[in-house]
C-alpha cells in the first residue's frame, strides 16, 4: 500500500527516516565487507 503524503514536510520526515536507517546499516556493513575483502591478503 502506498502511503499518501499531502505535504513535502511529511514526505521528508518519512523518507529521511528510512535513509537514516539505511545509512546506519551501511556503516556497520562496510566494516564487515572490508574485512571479508581483505582477510586473505598476506599482510
Amino acid at each position, binding site marked *: 500500500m502506498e502511503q499518501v*503524503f*499531502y*505535504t*513535502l*514536510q*511529511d*514526505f*521528508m*520526515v518519512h523518507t*529521511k527516516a528510512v*535513509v537514516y536507517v*539505511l*545509512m546506519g546499516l*551501511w*556503516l556497520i556493513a*562496510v566494516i564487515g565487507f*572490508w574485512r571479508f575483502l581483505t582477510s586473505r591478503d598476506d*599482510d
Partner: protein
Amino acid sequence: MSISRRKFLGWIGAAGLATTVGCRAEAAGKHFTGYPGSGGVLHDATLCIGCRVCEAACNEVNNLPEPEKPFKDQAVLENRRRTDAKAYTIVNKYEAGRDAGKPLFRKNQCNHCLEPACASACFVEAFTKTPSGAVVYDPSVCVGCRYCMIACPFEIPAYEYDNATTPVVQKCTMCHPRLQKGKLPGCVEKCPTESLAYGERKDLIRIARERIRKHPERYVDHIYGEHEMGGTSWLYLSGVPFTQVGLREDLGVTPAPQLTKGALGAVPMVVGLWPVFLTGVWAMSKRKEKIASEEQQDAVTAAIELANGEAAEKLAAAMEKAEKDKETAIEKEVKKAVEEAEKAWEEKAASAGEEPDAGAQDEEEES
C-alpha cells in the same frame, strides 16, 4: 557575435533551470498540494479597526495570563508590538498608504504555513501540520533548542525565557482544539467587522480574488499568503503594499523544506561514499608504505651483504699480512741466532783453532 553568445548563454541557463526544476519534481516524485479541504483565515486589513477584541478573545480561549494593560487600552497601539509567550496575536497600527492620516491596522499571528518552517526545523518533530490547516505544537517532546524561532520567516514562535524548569514555545494554534469541536477560532468569532473570516482555504482565495476584482481601487492586487513561503493557511488582503503593514514581500515562494532539501540529500551521499574514498586513500598510503618499507628492507640487506663481503676481504688481507709479519719475524730471529752462533763459534775457534766449518754447519741445522 554578442547576440549569439547571449543566446547560447540563454540556452545554457534554460537547460540548467529545466534540470533543476525537473530534478525537484523527479526527486519529490509528486507535487504536494497540502491537505484537501484544509481550513484557513482571511484577514482583510482594510476592514480592521484596531479594536483589539481579537486579542482579548485569543487571551480568553487560550487561558493566557492577564496583560499588563487592559485590552480596551488603545494607547498600546502606538508602539510596534510582536507576538510573545503571553500573546498569540497582536494588532499593530501603521501610518501608511494612500489616505495618510487614516491609520491602518493589521492583525499578526502564526500564518500556519502549508509547509511550516518550524516543523521542518524541529529535531523532535514537535510541530505538525494538521489536516485542519492548523500547525500545532507538542510541548511534551520539546527540548527547547529554539531552532523553530530561527527558522520561522514570520518571526512568530515565542519562548518562555523566564521559566527556569519547564519553558515551552508559544504560538497561535488557530484554535485547533476549538476547530475539532466545530467551533470557530476565538479571534474570528469575536471580530466585529468581518475583517476575519474562517473557511476552506480554497474558498477564501476565491473570495479574496473576487473582492480584488470588484474593488480594484480598494486593494492591492495580491493575496498575501497564497504563495509566500509555499503558501500559508492565513491569508491577507490590504489596501497598501504589504511591506507597509509589516509583512515582508521578499520571502520568496520556496517552501521551507525545499530550502534544506539539497543539504539533507547530500548527507547519505557522504555517508555512502566517504568511507569508500577514505578507505581507498588509506589502502593506497598503506601500500606505498609497505613498498617503501620493503625497499628499505632490501636496501638494508644489500648493505649488509656488501659490508660482509668487504669485511671478508679485509680479514683475508689482514691474515695475509699477519702471515707475512710472522715470516719476517722468524727470518729475523733466525738471522739473529745465526749471527750469535757464528760469533760464538768464531770465539770458540779462536780459542781452540781446529775444524771451524763443521761446527757452523751443525748450528744452522739445529735452529
